[in-house]
């Protein structure tokens, strides 16, 4: 027992790192959305799609806690790319940091997506849900998968990173609430149209909770193994404080709490208790 854990500890030691990473570039890509590139080769080389980094967004004690940000992409030469929206004081601080500043990060953290090879897969992103899905799209293409990337947002201005996705070679299928690009309506509705014709061997989603619930519902109906990336407020990010739980259901239907930081942020869509 204690031996097994020792090995686990060894493994973790190598993986999770706390370091000050230099800002390589930070640029605004939308009204309140920023693309941030940090120099963090030791994290970049081991990070997997779906994992996140816990970012200190202050030089003092206010704001106090780190902010979790999913890894959006891996750049050349050890760059770690993030895409985030300014929501409050933490992300506003981050947006003020310019190239050359150093940012205290902890990662990579959490359980990533389950990868496949040579399959047809569907990625369903709502709004900023694009963040982890771009990373898995890149990896999935490298692994020989065929990727249908369903991407919905309020309007065409909020469809960030379209060029990057297109250049990557995914089959990009857009949806907007106002019809200013692609399908008019929810991205899950668009996906449903494809589901009737195409057989996906796996599906992955990230976005607003109601959209994920609908995604999970569709995946179950069409019997597709599906994973979602969830959000919850976090403190440690390491599984120690039990502050970040979400409600899951086991196979017998019993509800229980699982850490999003270590049990997730990626969960089997069928295991999530969407009601609670």
């Amino acid at each position, binding site marked *: 027992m204690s031996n097994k854990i020792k090995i686990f500890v060894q493994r973790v030691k190598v993986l999770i790192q706390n370091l000050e990473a230099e800002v390589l570039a930070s640029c605004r890509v939308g009204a309140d959305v920023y693309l941030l590139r940090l120099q963090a080769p030791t994290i970049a080389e081991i990070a997997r799609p779906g994992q996140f980094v816990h970012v*200190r967004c202050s030089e003092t004690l206010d704001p*106090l806690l780190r902010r979790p940000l999913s890894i959006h992409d891996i750049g050349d030469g050890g760059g770690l790319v993030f895409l985030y929206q300014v929501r409050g004081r933490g992300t506003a601080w981050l947006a003020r940091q310019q190239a050359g500043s150093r940012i205290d990060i902890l990662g990579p953290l959490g359980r990533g997506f389950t990868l496949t090879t040579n399959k047809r897969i569907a990625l369903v992103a709502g709004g900023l849900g694009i963040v982890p899905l771009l990373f898995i799209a890149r990896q999935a293409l490298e692994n020989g998968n065929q990727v249908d990337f369903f991407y919905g947002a309020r309007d065409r201005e909020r469809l960030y990173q379209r060029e990057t996705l297109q250049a990557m070679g995914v089959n990009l299928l857009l949806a907007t609430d106002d019809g200013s690009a692609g399908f008019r309506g929810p991205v899950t509705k668009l996906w449903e149209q494809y589901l009737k014709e195409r057989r996906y061997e796996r599906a992955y989603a990230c976005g607003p909770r109601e959209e994920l619930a609908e995604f999970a519902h569709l995946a179950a109906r069409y019997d597709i193994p599906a994973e979602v990336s969830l959000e919850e407020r*976090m403190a440690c990010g390491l599984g120690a*404080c*039990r502050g*970040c739980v979400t409600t899951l259901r086991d196979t017998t239907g019993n509800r229980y709490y699982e850490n999003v930081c270590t049990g997730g942020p990626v969960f089997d869509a069928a295991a999530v208790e969407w009601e609670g």
Partner: protein
Amino acid sequence: MEQAGNRPAVNLKGQAGGVPFNPHHQETAPGVNLAVEIAGLRLANPVLPASGTFGFGAEYAPFVELNRLGAIVVKTITLHPTPGNPPPRLTETYSGLLNSIGLQNPGLEVFIREKLPYLRQFTPPLIVNIAGRTIGEYAELAARLSEAAGVDALEVNISCPNVREGGIVFGTVPAMAARVTAAVKGNTPLPVIVKLTPNVTDITVVARAVVEAGADALSLINTLQGMAIDIDTRRPALASVVGGLSGPAVKPVALYNVWRVARTVKVPLIGMGGIMTARDAIEFLLAGATAVAVGTASLVNPGALMAIIAGLEDYLLDQGLADIRDLIGALEI
């Protein structure tokens, strides 16, 4: 220690932010004694994790050399598995953290079977924090943990503000606090540390009551009762409405309580509440704490415990002091 150096930047050492992980920690500098004694336990240094913020140790192993801690303190254990409160359980406040975990833990059995074997391999004393919903549960926890090899002391949580029928009642009523203490003492040969809540009119009354009932040491403070509201949804920020406030915001309140209790009772104290740096820790020692516990700081900076131990050492060397015990209660008024 807080002077900015050559570069116009704060020296992060011992600060909450950005201490890079250094797994290769040197031993205490020769000629400097950091060791203290609490209730018969010898601690190599006075720095402990605070219960509930350090999981069961393994979670922090990438950043904290567990063998370098003064002691290891684990999350509160209850007799039966406790599912905890519904999410959201956390919210940040100005320089503070509000939580309502609700004592989620796997229960005594699983703790002994799955957590203890890992914890046993480390040399620092292991302090197990316990909470019961009845006095009988406290007594049973004490008895069963005393039989489990590797447990060196019990910390009795009579103050957790999240479980209605439990902690809140015991910790705020001196007679109840005393009865819990006596029940635990009567069922264990281990040293008993009672953890006090600050949510009382006069903490010294409770302190005196539990010491008279046999507490070998006290730890304080647990979290302050607090609340936050999300004005966009008009709902409480925490699903359980009320939570416990910890972190730098509460430090002055914690220090005040430690100072008052230190002047009231003779048993050693473990001071905690908002300690972020070695300088903060020294304030608690000067106020009369024999050791300190670090909670929220670790959640922000996983290397905080190591940085604080190193900072205490540096302080002693800087000040030409040979023994940290010379700082305990050395406040000049």
